[in-house]
Each structure stands twice: as C-alpha cells, then as structure tokens.
C-alpha cells in the first residue's frame, strides 16, 4: 500500500534536484509506471483496513484507473514538454517545478483515494487541488493566471464547504459512537451510519455535495473547469479530466454511501440526479459555441461527470455498474483526446477552432486520432462509451422513464455539438500552418484501443469485479 504513496513522493523529492530534461522525463515515466504496478499489486492482494489507509473495491478501481492514466500521461508528457521547452514556453525552473508537481499531484490523489480517515481524505484532495492550481498557472500568461485564480477561488470555497460537511458528519457520528472512538474512520462510520441523527446527516451531505461537487465540476459550480482545461499544459489537462475529477467523485461517493446506509436520511440520489442532469443539459448546450478546442473538451468533461453523478444517483447495481464503466471509459477516452489535442495545438500554434480545418488531410495521424477519440467519447458504437451510456439510459428507464428522456435529449445535444465541431476541425479544406511536432503515439493508441476493446468485449472477470463494486456502492 505504501508503494503507491511513497514512489510519487520520493520521485517528487528527486525532481527538486537539477536534472537534465531527458533524464527527468524518463524518471517521471519510470516512477509513474512503478506506481501503477504497485497499485495493481495492492488491488490483487488488499491488506486489512488500517486506521489511516484502507483498500476496498471502490477505491481500488479508482486507484488502478488513476495510476494507469497517470502512467500514460507521463509517457505523453515527455514529448510534449520537450517541445514546450524547446520553443521556450517553459524555462528550466518551470520544468523542474512541473515534474515535481506532477508526481506530488499523483501522491495527493492516491492518498485521498486510499484514506480511511475522512479528514485525511479531505487534506489530500486539498493538496492535489492546490498543486493543480499551480500547474494551471504554469505558463504565466494573463489568461493562464486568470484561469488559475478562478480555479483557486472556486476550489477553495468548495473545499471549505466540504470540510464543514466533514465536521458535521463527525458531530453526527460522535453522538452515537462516543468521544474516544474512531468517529472519523470511514469503515467505522459506514457500519454505525444507520444510528446517526438523520437531520444532521442531511445537512452535512448538502455541504459535501456542494463542496466536492465543485471539484467534480458539477453545474452551477463548474465555472473553473473549462478555463483550467484551456490554459494549463495539456498533460495537466489530461490528468485533471482523467483523474482529479474522479478523486473528488470518489470522496462524494463515500459520503453518499454513508447517507444511503441511514434509512431516515433523505435519499442522497435525488440531489445527485438533479445536479447531474443539470450538468449534462447545460454542458451539452454550452458545447455549441466554444471557440477554443481545449475548453470545448473541458465542457465535454462537465457533461460526462454530470452523467456519471446522475447514474450513481439513480443507484442500484445496474446503474452503478454503468457509472463505473462510464468513469473508466471517460477517463481513458478524454485523456486520449487531450493526447491528440495537445500536439494539434502545438502544431497549429493556436487553440482556436476557427483557425483549424482539414486536419485529417494535413496531419493524418493526429487528425484521425482526434476523430476516433471524439467518435468514442460521444458514445458511438462500437466504442465502450456507447455501451456504458446505453446501460445508464436503460437503467434509468427501468426506474424513472421521464428522466431517461431528458437525459437522452442532453446526450443527443452533446453528440451533435461535438460532431459539428469535429467536422469543422478535422475535415474540409486544410487551414493554417502546420509545424511538425513530436507526437507520443503509444499512449494515444493504447487508450483508444482500450476504449474500443471495452466496447467489443468486456472480460468476464473484469465485469464480475465491477459488478461486485457496484453492489457494494448500493
């Protein structure tokens, strides 16, 4: 268990030294790979829960997914950062900061996922967020600083609300569990939850939902997300979408499980459904008029996180299974898109959509990868997102047919918007100057193949594992 935490931490400390760039990039990849392997070993043989850390299916899933995306992103980051360094957008100091912060962010996210103490979970997520803020502002352009500032202010307010909710949970637990107890240990909370004061839990959950919901990027607390995606270095954008949003989602799910275990508390699903549906529909319509390629996919992340929160809100094994699958598919698919978008923006020298066109002709590999990524993420068969979205819709139909219609409309609107944008960027007459840039093909192809494979064939062992987690989430 310590491997997943210590490796990034030690790597971050090493990056504080002055390393030449190729060595630093190589070490970044090695550390991320080692973390991923440690995560796999941990999930294969979970140790018994401790007072600070524990592993069960749910955080095991998020941990493996997160450290895998972390690893592939480090592969992508090598070439990307080399180009940024060569063109002078990132100086020596910023380069060291970048690598150290990258590993430290992975450490924060893994710690938050593995924490058994809900206070520790909060602190670790706060750490990861603050680092993300620094990374978003790495380029120091006025727009990057504005994005980082906005992220910082909204993120801080969100995290403050989440802590207030955490304190309320502790107070609700203390009334039942007594003074000198483990009233902040999640494993203890979930068993004692049926006896908690329901009114207190309700109040706590409202704060937790708003607080962690800000980090998940739920409407109306999403304002930071598109800007942070637009202005940060692209590897960070990929990590934000593929990982950090998931870590916040995981925290939210933990508290949702506590509430769901208490029969007298309000069903937490209702609130999650409302915010999730609002996010899907709002983001779908915001997709239409985005002039900036990276912000466009930022809004797409809002839509997908909304969909996932919605599905977890519907609850029940079927919807949870679909939500878990959707989480994995979104992380893989969206980071694949950013792996393509990063070099595209470098090659074109702009992020503006109206200055791009005909990428499939002018830069076939990047153009077609972007096409594949977008086709996958909007939920076209045979990709995995199609399957998970289909499962979410059917699970919703079984419970709340009216909601399924609304959700379907939102998804269709997003589908049309993204394909419209894709058409403008990828097809037609080539536009703009293309400067050749180094492209990391391996992570891009790997992610797309995984999303495709999941759509065609989900191994029974994996499906059974996901189903087991889905049942436990309740």
């Amino acid at each position, binding site marked *: 268990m310590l491997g997943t935490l210590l490796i990034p931490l030690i790597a971050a400390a090493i990056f504080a030294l002055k390393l030449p760039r190729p060595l630093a990039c190589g070490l970044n990849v090695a550390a991320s790979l080692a973390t991923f392997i440690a995560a796999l070993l941990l999930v294969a043989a979970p140790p018994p829960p401790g007072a600070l850390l524990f592993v069960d299916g749910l955080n095991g899933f998020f941990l493996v997914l997160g450290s895998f995306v972390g690893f592939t992103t480090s592969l992508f980051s090598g070439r990307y950062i080399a180009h940024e360094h060569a063109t002078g957008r990132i100086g020596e100091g910023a380069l060291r900061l970048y690598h150290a912060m990258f590993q430290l962010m992975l450490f924060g996210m893994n710690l938050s996922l593995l924490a058994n103490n809900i206070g520790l979970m909060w602190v670790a997520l706060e750490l990861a967020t603050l680092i993300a803020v620094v990374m978003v502002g790495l380029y120091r352009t006025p727009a990057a600083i504005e994005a980082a500032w906005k992220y910082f202010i909204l993120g801080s307010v969100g995290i403050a609300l989440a*802590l207030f909710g955490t304190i309320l949970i502790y107070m609700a637990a203390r009334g039942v569990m007594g003074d000198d107890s483990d009233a902040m240990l999640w494993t203890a909370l979930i068993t004692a939850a049926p006896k908690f004061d329901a009114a207190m839990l309700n109040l706590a959950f409202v704060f937790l939902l708003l607080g962690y919901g800000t980090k998940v990027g739920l409407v109306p607390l999403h304002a930071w997300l598109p800007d942070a995606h637009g202005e940060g270095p692209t590897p960070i954008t990929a990590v934000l979408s593929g990982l950090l949003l998931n870590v916040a989602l995981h925290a939210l799910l933990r508290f949702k499980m506590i509430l769901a275990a208490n029969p007298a508390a309000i069903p937490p699903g209702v609130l999650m459904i409302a915010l999730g549906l609002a996010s899907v529909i709002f983001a779908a319509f915001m997709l239409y008029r985005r002039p900036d390629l990276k912000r466009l996919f930022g809004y797409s992340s809002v839509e997908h996180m909304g969909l996932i929160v919605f599905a977890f809100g519907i609850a029940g094994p079927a919807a949870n299974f679909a939500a878990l699958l959707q989480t994995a598919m979104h992380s893989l698919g969206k980071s694949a898109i950013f792996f393509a978008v990063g070099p595209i923006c470098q090659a074109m020298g702009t992020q503006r959509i109206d200055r791009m066109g005909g990428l499939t002709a002018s830069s076939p590999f990047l153009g077609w990868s972007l096409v594949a990524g977008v086709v996958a993420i909007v939920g076209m068969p045979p990709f995995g997102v199609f399957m998970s979205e289909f499962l979410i819709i059917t699970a919703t139909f079984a419970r709340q047919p009216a909601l399924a219609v609304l959700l379907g409309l939102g998804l269709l609107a997003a589908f049309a918007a993204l394909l419209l944008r894709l058409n403008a960027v990828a097809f037609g007459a080539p536009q703009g100057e293309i400067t050749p840039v180094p492209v990391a093909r391996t992570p891009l192809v790997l992610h797309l193949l995984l999303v495709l494979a999941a759509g065609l064939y989900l191994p029974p062992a994996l499906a059974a594992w996901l189903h087991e987690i889905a049942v436990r989430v309740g």
Partner: protein
Amino acid sequence: MHSLTFDIAHMLSGGLVLASFLMLYQDRLPSLINMLALQAAVLGLSVGWQAIAQDAPHLWITAALAIGFKAIAIPMALRRIIVKLDIHREIETVGGIGRTMLAGIALVALALQVVLPVTSASDALAREDIALALSVVLLGMLMMVTRRNAVSQIIGFMSLENGIILAATGARGMPLVVEISVAFSVLIAFIVVGIFLFRIRERFDTVDVTALDRLRGDGT
C-alpha cells in the same frame, strides 16, 4: 446549560461573527487587514477557551497557530504586499454598505435557522459553535463575492477559514490530525496565493480581478 463556560464560549464565537461584520464594510485595505488580525485573535481566544472547557490540551496548538500565525505573521506579510503593490492607499468600492450589511444579517439568520433545529441532539455549546461558525463561513463568502480586489478576496477566504476552524474546534474530541492539517493547508494556501499575487503583479498594473475578466480567451 447557562454555565460560565457556555457564556464565555458563546461570547467569543459571537465576537468572531462581529469581526466578520466589521470586515464587511472596510473600504481601505490596511484597516481590512487589521480587522482580519482582530478576528484571528478572537479565534485564538475562542480556541483557547475550548481547550480549557473540553480539557483538550492539543487545542492549545491550534490556538497558538491562530494567534501567532494568522493574527500576527499573515497580517504583517499582507501589509508588506500591499505596500509593495502600492495599493495601500486605494479606496475600494464596496458597493452599498447598507445592502451588504443587510445581506450579512440575512446570512447569519439563515445559518442559525439551518443549524439549530437539526442539532438538537448535540450539547448546547457545540450547537451554538457550529451555527456561529457557519455564519462566519457565509460572511466570508459574501465578502469574496462583493470584493473585486484580489487581496480582499484572499482576506475573505481567510475569514472563511477562521469559521471552519471555529467549527472544527467546537466539535468535541475531533482528532488532532485534522486541526494541524487545516492550519497547514492554510499555510500552503497562503504560499500559493503569495505566488499568485506576484505573478499577477508581474503582468498587470492592477490586482483588480475585473482586469482579469477582460482577458478571457473564451468569448462568451
């Protein structure tokens, strides 16, 4: 219920809310910083009183942090920053003071109305503490919303953090790990903000965040 312990704790928590109101209408940055220092000092006293009342000696650390770090060190640093940025003489337009104060009063009423009914099972001390802490949190948010200047937004955020710490210490027996880490995260937050301020200063002639809004790449 109406013991001396309760009365003193109540008074100190109320003092924190009062300091929040005082901050709401300060339109000069130096006086705003003074009010922040005052609030942090009251917080230190309040936490110290909780340490006695709950017989929880580890709370003294939090109290010492509140006074040493938040009431003395940070205000000093902030004063230096505003002099360096040459904004210490500027007068900020706070909007209608009357309206802001009314909104503040409404928020306090809301906090009491929300917290008191649901916490009837807890002891009176913790209830009042949570209710007043929520008021401070909401007032801090109000300040962040009504201010345009980056420094005053940070001050609003720190006042919000004061409210959170009041709540954390009011919850009897909450593990120490949380309190230290909260203080720690405040420190990190401050470092980050410090970096930001200087970066903003590097690029712009103002720390007025409306200037940032004009520079958005995303034309909505």
